[in-house]
């Protein structure tokens, strides 16, 4: 009954509606026209929204070849050719670190760093400087020379091109000299940017592989992280692994355990890796490269979300435009655009804060350095007096660990500012370890009948130190000179012919 009543009521309502319209048919037409107009207008709005949204995809994307009107970012890159800035300890000029600090020659005896170690110049000089440095030697042909092609990895956007052609392992297998004619353009746009979208990208496999081993996916990194990670493709500690591919010096970042000196040391100890055997002490040594990203990650700026680019490539204004300054440089040369974005102190006061940290860290690093030189000499003496392998084992391990810590602090760029606490802690533990080793050495030397201080040699200059460890610098320099005179021009000629054929 109830159901029927409802149905009747509905029919009645419909009837009234229909009747209402049946009596006035023009009303239906008005309703129809109104709907047409409203939907038409909504369609227009939708079209307008679509259009303005699509503008976002095309806005600021040049549709023609804009050369020679290069964007300001590109122009500012050539600022890296500027070598005029000198801070208290570093800057953009080339500094011969062995001249500044001849003790380093002794620390690296038996390793190519004792031949030549300079603070490099800007990105613009990446290829020139690696050709000129004595560590790459003077190859006489494409199969000659001391270094593998791996040494090119960070120098040029030509590297990903060759890796695409011969494969990653293939690249690491080649000799340094064999790729000389290919790797000719210094670090540039494509090292960090996708050439089509200009988005930041990782172009070097070593970083992606290190992330993978740590169980992280680098493709998931956000924009702000990428503004540090593109730098971390190169500004990191690394080593050449010979086990990954047959005959290859495979570039690997030792990050599996973590970023601190101890965690990387454990990684190297576990795989019994040594970079070289020390010429004086016979210790199995590690060479720290430049753990810049790792040390920065332990610092307070990283914790607060500040990326490498925030300070080393800050925003600048020029002619009504704002853009990222691609003259990567020391923030000390550009305090107003870097530090003072957050810190409201006077320029001089901010710089003083940096120098204070550098001074304090250097004080202890020098202390550790001198201890290490003495430890090497004392170990050499112990061998001369007939010490046995088993007597020396722990001592040499101590020297290895202490110098690794020294190098971790010395090789990192800006470490005393990026993370003064971590850098200071690392040096302090290095001093403890080397002192332990020297106490053991003193006992051993006494046992062997030598109970006096070792005579500290005159290593007041680079030349004297190099002579002391028996390097034939004249020959090394002559080889390099010949290489630069005969081989390099051929490389450049071949490269130019190739690049002309692309145009």
């Amino acid at each position, binding site marked *: 009954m109830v159901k029927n009543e409802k149905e009747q009521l509905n029919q009645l309502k419909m009837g009234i509606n229909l009747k209402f319209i049946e009596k006035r048919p023009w009303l239906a037409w008005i*309703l*129809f026209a109104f*709907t047409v107009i*409203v*939907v038409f207008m*909504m*369609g227009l*709005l*939708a079209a*307008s*929204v*679509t259009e*303005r*949204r*699509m*503008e*976002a*995809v095309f*806005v*600021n994307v040049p549709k023609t070849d804009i050369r020679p009107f290069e*964007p300001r*970012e590109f122009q500012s890159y050539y600022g890296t050719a500027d070598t005029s800035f000198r801070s208290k300890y570093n800057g953009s000029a080339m500094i011969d670190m062995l001249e500044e600090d001849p003790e380093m020659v002794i620390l690296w005896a038996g390793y190519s760093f004792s031949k030549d170690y300079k603070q490099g110049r800007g990105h613009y000089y990446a290829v020139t400087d690696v050709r000129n440095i004595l560590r790459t030697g003077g190859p006489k042909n494409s199969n000659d020379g001391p270094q593998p092609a791996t040494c090119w990895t960070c120098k040029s956007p030509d590297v990903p091109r060759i890796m695409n052609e011969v494969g990653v392992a293939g690249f690491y297998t080649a000799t340094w000299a064999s790729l000389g004619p290919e790797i000719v353009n210094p670090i540039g746009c494509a090292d960090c940017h996708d050439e089509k979208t*200009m*988005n*930041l990208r990782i172009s070097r496999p070593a970083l992606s592989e290190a992330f993978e081993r740590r169980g992280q996916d680098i493709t998931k990194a956000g*924009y*702000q992280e990428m503004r540090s990670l593109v730098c971390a493709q190169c500004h990191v500690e690394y080593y050449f692994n010979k086990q990954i591919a047959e005959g290859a010096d495979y570039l690997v970042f030792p990050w599996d355990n973590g970023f601190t000196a101890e965690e990387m040391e454990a990684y190297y100890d576990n795989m019994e890796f040594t970079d070289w055997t020390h010429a004086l002490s016979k210790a199995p040594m590690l060479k720290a490269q430049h753990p810049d990203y790792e040390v920065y990650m332990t610092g307070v700026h990283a914790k*607060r*979300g500040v990326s490498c680019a*925030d300070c080393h490539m*800050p*925003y600048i*204004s020029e002619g*009504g*435009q*704002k*853009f990222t300054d691609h003259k990567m440089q020391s923030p000390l040369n550009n305090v107003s655009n870097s530090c003072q*974005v*957050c810190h409201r102190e006077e320029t001089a006061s901010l710089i003083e804060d940096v120098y204070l940290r550098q001074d304090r860290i250097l004080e202890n690093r020098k202390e550790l350095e001198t201890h290490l030189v003495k430890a090497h000499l004392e170990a050499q003496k112990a061998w001369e007096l007939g010490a046995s392998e088993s007597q020396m084992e722990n001592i040499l391990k101590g020297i290895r660990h202490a110098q690794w810590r020294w190098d971790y602090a010395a090789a990192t760029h800006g470490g005393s500012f990026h993370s003064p606490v971590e850098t200071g802690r690392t040096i302090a533990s290095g001093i403890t370890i080397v002192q332990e080793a020297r106490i053991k050495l003193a006992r051993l030397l006494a046992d062997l009948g030598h109970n006096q201080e070792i005579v500290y040699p005159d290593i007041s200059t680079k030349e004297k130190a190099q002579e002391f460890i028996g390097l034939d610098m004249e020959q090394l320099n002559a080889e390099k000179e010949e290489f630069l005179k005969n081989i390099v021009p051929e490389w450049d000629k071949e490269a130019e012919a190739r690049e002309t054929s692309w145009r």
Partner: protein
Amino acid sequence: MAALSVFLGISLFTLWLSKAHSYISDDPKACINCHIMAPQYATWSHSSHREVTHCNDCHVPQNNFFNKYYFKAKDGLRHATIFTLRNEPQVIFIKDEGAEAVHNNCIRCHYDQLVDPKLNVMVDNHREKMTERKCLECHREVPHGRVNSLSSVPNAKVPLPENPVPEWLKMKKNN
């Protein structure tokens, strides 16, 4: 009924296309649904305020929930209208009402700096002088800088909306 569903459908489409739902959030990405806001986004993301504020923290009142959303709706509809009519100026300046909201939000976070008890004692009318003038009268560079035309950051990498056409609907290039 049919008319109503067509209207509803096309309305939903417009809402989806304009990412209308994002305006309820505090995500700064919502503000660059209109690409002309890219300079403001880019300069904020290069400023010290990046780590502690998003757009709404400064640009809409935060004194109470209703006022926040009332202001946001009013300002947002004005922006949407101007953008749709292509009536945007080459250089966008803040309106008085917006400046007032920003000023109050400066005070909201930086109150302690403005009413320093030491200066209150030492300087005549310190509190009035510090809170009744607009902060931005002097701190004009905070945080966007002073170069703000629509074309001031031509190459800034900001997360602008992407092409809304789904992949499966795109013709392959080689067809």
